[in-house]
């Protein structure tokens, strides 16, 4: 695994952006900025920016620690403090990080948050997580209640309810903490930049409709969504990033190149898959390799929609600033009901000409995993394409069994192969 990793300029740009954000976060004593801790689903970055606050995402910290092979020790630490083995491993990695001096990935201590902004209540664990943080930091906490779209639609009532909370609770709290007065025009500007970046992100994700996809929409996709899901949506940096990224992908299509992997361009596209569920972060490279080695390209994934389902048409709208923020929170992937998710997956398989659906079911994330078996069977029935199920975890290395995952993946690829030769013989 020590081979030199191939990186494109968009990747280097992103790396710098992330590093700058961590540097800003760990220098609040000097820069005097206030910190809001929040979540990827329902992330209100444009609003946070209106108050000159910094955005800290504990989920992303856990992912960073997972990819740097540090989460295992943090989780064990949290377990030593009494957290059960079955609790969400993002939570335990975060708690473990705190107990180990709360060191950010740049090696400097993270400041305590000034505001805990719970942006999404679709995950019950998120609420408990922030309650634990509130207990630890004793800082101001706002819980934005986001109704679940159980009937598959966002009603006016739901939107009004979220807008009301933004006006009456979220914005006043941010004004109070930051000392900056809310300026709706500033928000509109941020949202305009968001929409521009979102257009290009969607273009990039849709480029996988090419047969000989220029991207991997899961393993590559998690990099592509990086800026827009985190502290950069609404910034000029994000606009620039997505313009550069789009340029790179346009070039790949022109040159008829497949997706880029840590070991270079993928020479062959043998299988086109749609993937449901987050990736495993502790063995990310090893996991990815199991796909690209076999010529399997992920052409669409639902995980890249957890921080916004832009490909189905949603854009942040400067003309309806608070309303569109509310709709954004309500429309996140895991806030959608199961029939909606089945429909999305079915459409992806058809629109992206995929060979089938693969579900990576996450041990410690019930909000993602509950219902996946039904979804799988339903998608299989509707598309007639084979599906498979693998099980890993987010950031707990103990839940990644390489032999088991590889066994299932290889079986699945060979199953697709067999089905193909069966139908070509028929």
């Amino acid at each position, binding site marked *: 695994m020590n081979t030199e990793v191939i990186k494109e300029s968009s990747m280097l740009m992103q790396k710098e952006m992330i590093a700058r954000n961590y540097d800003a976060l760990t220098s609040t004593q000097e820069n005097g900025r206030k910190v809001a801790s929040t979540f990827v689903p329902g992330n209100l970055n444009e609003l946070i920016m209106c108050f000159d606050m910094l955005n800290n995402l504990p989920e992303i910290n856990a992912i960073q620690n997972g990819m740097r092979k540090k989460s295992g020790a943090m989780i064990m630490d949290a377990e030593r403090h009494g957290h059960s083995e079955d609790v969400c491993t993002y939570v335990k990695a975060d708690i473990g990080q705190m107990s180990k001096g709360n060191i950010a990935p740049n090696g400097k201590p993270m400041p305590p948050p000034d505001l805990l902004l719970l942006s999404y209540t679709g995950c019950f664990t998120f609420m408990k997580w922030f309650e634990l943080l509130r207990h630890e930091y004793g800082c101001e906490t706002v819980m934005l209640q986001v109704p679940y779209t159980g009937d598959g639609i966002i009603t006016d009532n739901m939107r009004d309810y979220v807008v009301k909370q933004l006006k009456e609770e979220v914005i006043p709290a941010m004004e109070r903490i930051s000392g900056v007065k809310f300026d709706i025009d500033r928000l509109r500007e941020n949202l305009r930049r968001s929409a521009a970046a979102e257009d290009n992100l969607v273009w990039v994700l849709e480029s996988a409709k090419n047969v000989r996809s220029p991207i991997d929409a899961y393993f590559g996709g998690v990099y592509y969504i990086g800026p827009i899901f985190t502290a950069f949506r609404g910034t000029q940096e994000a606009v620039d990033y997505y313009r550069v990224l789009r340029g790179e992908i346009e070039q790949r299509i022109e040159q008829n190149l497949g997706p880029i992997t840590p070991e270079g361009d993928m020479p062959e596209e043998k299988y086109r898959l749609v993937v449901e569920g987050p990736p495993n972060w502790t063995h990310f490279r090893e996991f990815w390799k199991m796909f690209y080695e076999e010529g399997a390209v992920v052409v669409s994934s639902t995980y890249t929609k957890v921080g916004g389902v832009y490909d189905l048409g949603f854009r942040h709208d400067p003309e309806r600033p608070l309303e569109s923020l509310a709709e954004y929170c309500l429309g996140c992937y895991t806030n959608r009901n199961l029939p909606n998710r089945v429909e999305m997956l079915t459409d992806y398989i058809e629109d992206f000409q995929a060979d089938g659906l693969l579900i990576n079911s996450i041990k410690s994330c019930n909000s993602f995993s509950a219902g996946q078996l039904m979804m799988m069977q339903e998608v299989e029935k509707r598309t007639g394409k084979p599906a498979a199920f693998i099980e890993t975890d987010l950031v707990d290395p103990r839940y990644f069994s390489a032999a088991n995952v590889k*066994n299932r993946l290889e079986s699945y690829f060979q199953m697709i192969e067999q089905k193909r030769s069966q139908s070509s013989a028929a």
Partner: protein
Amino acid sequence: MKCFIGIDLGSTTTKAVIVDEDGQALGHGITNSRSNYDTASRVAQMEASISTRLTLFRQRLDAIPELKGKITGLLDDLERYFRLELFLEQLDDLHQTCLKSARDLSIFGGGADLSEALEEIFQQLNKTLESLFAPGAARKSDFFRDLAGSAYMHVGEEVATQMGLSFETLLNIYDKSIIEVENRPPAHNLDEKFMNALDRVLKQTDISGDLMRKPIQSALEEEIEACYIVGTGYGRVRLPFPKEHIRSEILCHGLGAHLMYPNTRTVLDIGGQDTKGIQVDESGIVANFQMNDRCAAGCGRYLGYIADEMNMGLHELGPMAMKSTRSVRINSTCTVFAGAELRDRLALGEKREDIVAGLHRAIILRAMSIISRSGGVSNEFTFTGGVAKNEAAVKELRKLVVENYGDVKINIDPESIYTGALGAAEFARRSGTGSKVH
């Protein structure tokens, strides 16, 4: 003759199956995987080729009218003598290796000269173990390690006491040597051993030697030409084969079960470290599958741990569970907690056979959940893998299938342990003969 080989490298055992150009199974072989898949694969192939020779002998002898009605007995004797020769050769290898290990030990300060003790032990072993190959004798295992090992323990302890030596040292010598012996390439001169065995068979019958010698000789001369090999199972990546010669065990089990029972639509395989529920279509193509996650709870290995905890052989668990009169509910199929659960139940005064029956039920309950996740049971249901040999597991399975899916036909082949290897051999045949997969 052109042959095609499938090898299934499981976590516990390695299996090989040889088929001919028409897909007829000619022979199969099994050995323990001994953490060395290279050797295991060679030994399993050798066993399969021995079994193929026996099939060829039978084909030749079947054509001789004078032998009618006697062939099975003759071939059983022939195999017995052949296996005895093979066994004694390996025992002698063990003897020499133990002597060498003992010498190494004394060079490095082990002290006492143990060669005398070893001579005594092996003299006794030769005598007692030969009886394992007497007509009608039952062997507890087919693996050299198991047979020689348990006898060595027994004899070694006696000899150590008599001679005032440390049994532990003798045990260390054995442990070190058995690994070397097991990993040595399979024995040569199989043809010669077959002919020697034939001589012994002929000595005890009034059948004319010429009647048998020629056909056996001609069967031995028939070249078994391995045209294509396909590997599967956990150790498949260890095989020195190009990628197209390696198939997933799920596909191999699906196809193998289909070949044994063409109406099979659902396959359950419980192996050493995984349990698979597989749905196949009318051509044996896998339509869906589910298996246990990284944890081997409720797999064959779990029974292995239980057997160890109870100081019993794995094959003794099933018969013990069959004696149960009362059902005991076991909640955990966790391998790690297996020992604790067991001791807990014993402390509560439960009977061993009832607890063991409960453990079997717990395993099957877990398997039923995997099956239902893969799509349930439809039409014929085939149970394969090492655990399918366990009568108590089979009994529970039958009960639960009927309870959940009604009166479904359940197939359990006594040779079901070879299902994956058979599927692999068929994949090999299809690739090797260029016949379309379907």
